[in-house]
């Protein structure tokens, strides 16, 4: 078990290093931030001054080294545009993103898991077919479209919900639904296929032959086994949700880190883009690591592997 955790952690650190290097190089390909921050007629001297101020005149390897060094000490630098610490901007926005992701995740699990179980138990029946349509719509409709349709119905026609911003519980409903929609479909599809596989297993057959009530066969023997891949996916998806909400947050003007990233890209604000991506990546990598370890606790077979 200890060895397993150490090995997993090693892989995680390697992934993080590769991610930071990639994003560092990619933002620098997008162009020169100074051209967006200075007036069009700015002198070459002003441009050079600003570049020096941002440290962009240094060789790339030195810039990367400074980025990594300050990152490890918890300093994410100053935003080029706001001139305030990136970390302050990030933590100002993070609670909103967490709230949005948490509500969206709960919605996606509450919708996805029971409907997936229902579809698997009644395979080929009404619930299964209804579920298939739901999955198809969930996975194929883009979130900006769903967002706009929801705004049209619930804000424009019915006037029930606010279309943008944050502040009250009502504000979170539409963005969370829009964000959770896709994931509900994904969780349903995985629950269904995973349940079907488990329901066909010999141990489920033996559980039935033991005379257990069907609720116990499905709820105990099949469900717990079928849940393992769903937990993995949901764990990873939670972090994915925090970090892919760029479109949803933009549609609903939700002040989360997705919007921060969007603004950072618009202004070529390298420290913001780097920080959001590397922090988001760290979260995803960390959650993957935790899920792997949690897995080992749920599934006794992994526990003993060394």
């Amino acid at each position: 078990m200890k060895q397993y955790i150490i090995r997993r952690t090693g892989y995680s650190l390697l992934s993080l290093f590769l991610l930071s290097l990639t994003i560092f190089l990619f933002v620098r390909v997008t162009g020169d931030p100074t051209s967006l921050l200075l007036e069009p007629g700015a002198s070459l001297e002003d441009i050079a001054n600003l570049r020096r101020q941002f440290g962009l005149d240094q060789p790339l390897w030195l810039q990367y080294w400074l980025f990594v060094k300050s990152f490890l000490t918890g300093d994410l630098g100053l935003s080029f545009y706001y001139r305030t610490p990136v970390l302050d901007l990030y933590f100002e926005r993070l609670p909103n993103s967490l709230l949005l992701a948490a509500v969206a995740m709960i919605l996606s699990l509450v919708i996805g898991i029971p409907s997936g179980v229902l579809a698997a138990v009644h395979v080929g029946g009404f619930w299964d077919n209804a579920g298939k349509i739901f999955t198809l719509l969930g996975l194929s409709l883009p979130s900006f479209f769903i967002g706009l349709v929801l705004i049209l119905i619930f804000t424009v026609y019915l006037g029930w919900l606010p279309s943008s911003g944050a502040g009250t519980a009502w504000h979170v409903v539409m963005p969370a639904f829009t964000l959770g929609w896709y994931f509900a479909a994904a969780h349903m599809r995985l629950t269904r296929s995973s349940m079907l596989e488990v329901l066909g297993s010999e141990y489920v057959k033996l559980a039935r032959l033991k005379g257990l009530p069907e609720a116990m066969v499905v709820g105990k023997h099949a469900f717990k086994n079928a849940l393992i891949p769903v937990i993995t996916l949901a764990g990873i998806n939670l972090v994915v949700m925090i970090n892919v909400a760029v479109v949803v947050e933009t549609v609903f003007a939700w002040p989360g880190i997705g919007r921060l990233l969007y603004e950072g890209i618009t202004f070529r604000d390298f420290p913001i883009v780097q920080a959001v991506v590397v922090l988001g990546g760290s979260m995803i990598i960390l959650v993957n690591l935790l899920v792997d370890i949690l897995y080992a606790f749920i599934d006794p077979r992994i526990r003993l592997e060394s």
Partner: protein
Amino acid sequence: MAAMSRESLLSLEHLSAHYVSQQGARVVPAVEDVTLRLGAGETLGIVGESGSGKSTLALTIMRQLPPAARIVSGRMMFEGENLLDKTDAEMRHVRGKRIAMILQDPMASLNPLFSIGNQVGEPLRVHEGASFKLAWKRAIELLKSVRIASPETRVSQFPHEMSGGMRQRIVGAIGISCEPRLLIADEPTTSLDLTIQAQYLNLLGDLQRQYGLALIFITHNLGIVAKMCDLLAVMYAGRIVEQGPVSRIFSAPAHPYTRALLGSIPRMTDNRGRLTAIEGQPPDLSSLPPGCAFAPRCPAAIARCRREAPPEIAIDSDHTARCWLAESDSEAPPAIGARARSDGT
């Protein structure tokens, strides 16, 4: 061998179970017109090739067929009750309590996420309302009775920590947990190696004597039948083609298929260097020939075999064969048998 009591524990009468395709276009008669009797404490071996309907017959008795299969006709009398009259809820209290079944794959029959004690005690909790603690204690005793060493530690372990032989014995412990009257074992030893097989068979024999169980042994290993069983039923294409006491069938098989099966057992004294096989392929159950299903492969087939399916012909009181050529040992041969013989010459 167990004392023969002809008071029957289980009696199947003209039982048929079919697989029906979704549109109802294809009907596969996996079990067709099966009639057999089994007394308390007796052991019945059911042999036949893969796809002959042995496992479907077992699942029919448990009333636990896959969704595509239906029991279409017949009666299943068990301890004086027709199991086919029972509701699903009533049948649930028969499964695991009065009739238990062991599946063939010990590696896959246990749930990887629950401890051995949890799974062995489960039938006791469900059928006898035992508390978790009591069921756990019983589970330890059951593990002891299937000869698992140090059951006190094993009981809290998980399936992946056990060898194949141990897992199969644990499945056996689950089977006997509620002291059923009948245990159906579907090829319980095919995935075990030979020494473990022998141990397991001895164990089943001992459990049978200890608990007074009737056993139905589904196998394609005639050696096991010779060692374990009182009665033998040979299945071919969903039908029982011959049944009777093992000793009688082994010494005087009446059906050509049984003769072929017995002839295909490899013997050490055989120095021809080749294994004897039965010519041809098992038939497609969805398009059986009009006559006897074995006729296309039968070395002794006559014209009538291809026209008419033979009924069960009594060779003597408890030995029957579905063959027009079946010979009767008894003084007064049944009329059909006699006609068949004259037809053949």
